[in-house]
């Protein structure tokens, strides 16, 4: 496995994103909107302090939800896009291995997604601190739980979403369908979020967050083996429809 080859492929995709501005916009718009809207609402409404300490971690969990959705735009574009434009065949004829291509595609979906989400979360934290400092008397962010959420759960969730999208991409020919199916990666996180709201899982307890991360890591490994099997040149050229 030569990382340099994967990086060449990822760089090519980045160049494409720069040309295709709408890919960039769809990538950025949701994280930025959420990151601005929530603090604005917080500022406009007067939420009691004990509610705030419960709400803010829940809002932070939104970024895990985002991690499930955001990579879909890019992954479906780069993988189904290559399939539709039939650009995979010459790529597969080049001296690169399937694994190197797969990793390149994963990087090109992973990096922009994680940057958009973490960038959004920084914006969110700063604005929320500004909005809630008066009522709380201290800056809520940053804190340990947020760090676990953003630096463990979010990357693992992005990875899961990327892998899921690769699997989906092998089975559809339409970028739109790929996006809809790809978005399903967010469902487990919606579930966790709802369970959190219903008080089945406390999302402001560090150990719970670590356990969820552990499960995610496991799912990532499992999905990776499926991905690896989906992304084989013979499979791509003869079965990918």
């Amino acid at each position, binding site marked *: 496995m030569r990382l340099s080859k994967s990086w060449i492929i990822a760089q*090519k995709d980045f160049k494409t994103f720069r040309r295709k501005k709408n890919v960039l916009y769809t990538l950025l718009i949701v994280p930025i909107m959420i990151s601005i809207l929530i603090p604005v609402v917080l500022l406009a409404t007067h939420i009691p302090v004990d509610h705030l300490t419960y709400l803010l971690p829940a809002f932070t969990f939104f970024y895990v939800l985002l991690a499930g959705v955001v990579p879909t735009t890019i992954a479906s574009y780069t993988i189904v896009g290559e399939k539709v434009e*039939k650009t995979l065949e*010459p790529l*597969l004829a*080049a*001296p690169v*291995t399937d694994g190197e291509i797969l990793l390149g595609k994963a990087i090109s979906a992973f990096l922009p997604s994680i940057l958009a989400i973490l960038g959004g979360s920084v914006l969110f934290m700063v604005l929320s601190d500004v909005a809630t400092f008066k009522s709380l008397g201290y800056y809520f962010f940053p804190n340990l739980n947020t760090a676990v959420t953003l630096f463990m759960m979010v990357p693992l969730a992005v990875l899961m979403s990327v892998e899921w999208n690769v699997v989906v991409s092998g089975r559809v020919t339409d970028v739109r369908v790929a996006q809809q199916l790809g978005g399903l990666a967010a469902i487990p996180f919606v579930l966790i979020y709802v369970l959190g709201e219903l008080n089945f899982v406390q999302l402001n307890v560090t150990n719970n967050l670590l356990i969820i991360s552990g499960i995610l890591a496991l799912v990532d490994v499992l999905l990776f083996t499926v991905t690896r099997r989906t992304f084989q040149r013979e499979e791509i050229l003869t079965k990918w429809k």
Partner: protein
Amino acid sequence: MIDAENLTKKFGNLTAVDNLTLHVDEGEIFGLLGPNGAGKTTTVRMLCCLISKTEGKASIAGYDVGNEADALKIRKLIGFVPDNVGLYEALSANDNLDFYGKLYDVPDAKRKENIERVLKMLDLWEKKDVMVGTFSKGMKQKLALARALIHDPPVLFLDEPTANLDPEASKTVRDFILELKKQKRTIFLNTHNLDEARRLCDKIGILNTSLRALGSPQELENNVGGRATVIQLEQLTDAVQEALRNLRLDMTIIENRVTIRLANPEKENSAILDAVFRAGGRVQSTAIVGSTLEDAYLKLVRKEAIE
């Protein structure tokens, strides 16, 4: 340079390529000629290590097709233009070539030089910064050729490079292929265009799932298509017709002209003419004609249909 022995590919219970054996020498243009669905693309994909073979052996420059370790070496040696050009339409011509140059490990300076050289050779240099999505079909095909040449490969696989091109663009591409031959590259050309095969190829294989014939265009015309004797009579009388029928020949009659397909006209002509004279026929002229590649091809493909 390219060798295949009993190469076979099955998709489930459909046999796409059956027991293909062929050999292409260094510097030769080999044409794989066959109708749609004949297995041309499948063959090239196997030789380029893109899909596995079901049975048989193949090698490129001595490297074993199907051996995982050799596959990367083979890919470095070959340039491949697939039937769908597969260019990145959102990127410029230069970006497309640069990307592939990097993938093939062409060093920076050399890459720049190669890009300029191939784009100039193909008349695309002025368009190097233009998005490929705006290119015409002919330009895309040329750019795909340029991409296949970016690492200066000794072996090229071209899958129907002139299909869907207008005559002028086709000619440019064909001239360019001849140019590549002058550079001593070995070229494996898939085509369903007979004229193209005859004009470009040193050797032709006619494929229809299995190989139907193999040889130089000349050999195919003589051996497969067979030759014919054309007899022009003053008047084709019933007696003459009767006499010819009795010889049980493969013939067609158009007005007063009789075309008789023969394996060896030189040997058989005198007997035929004797029969004509005895029946009172008055011969204006006789000629031996060679069949065309088209005759050879149609004969093989039709035979297939009848079977």
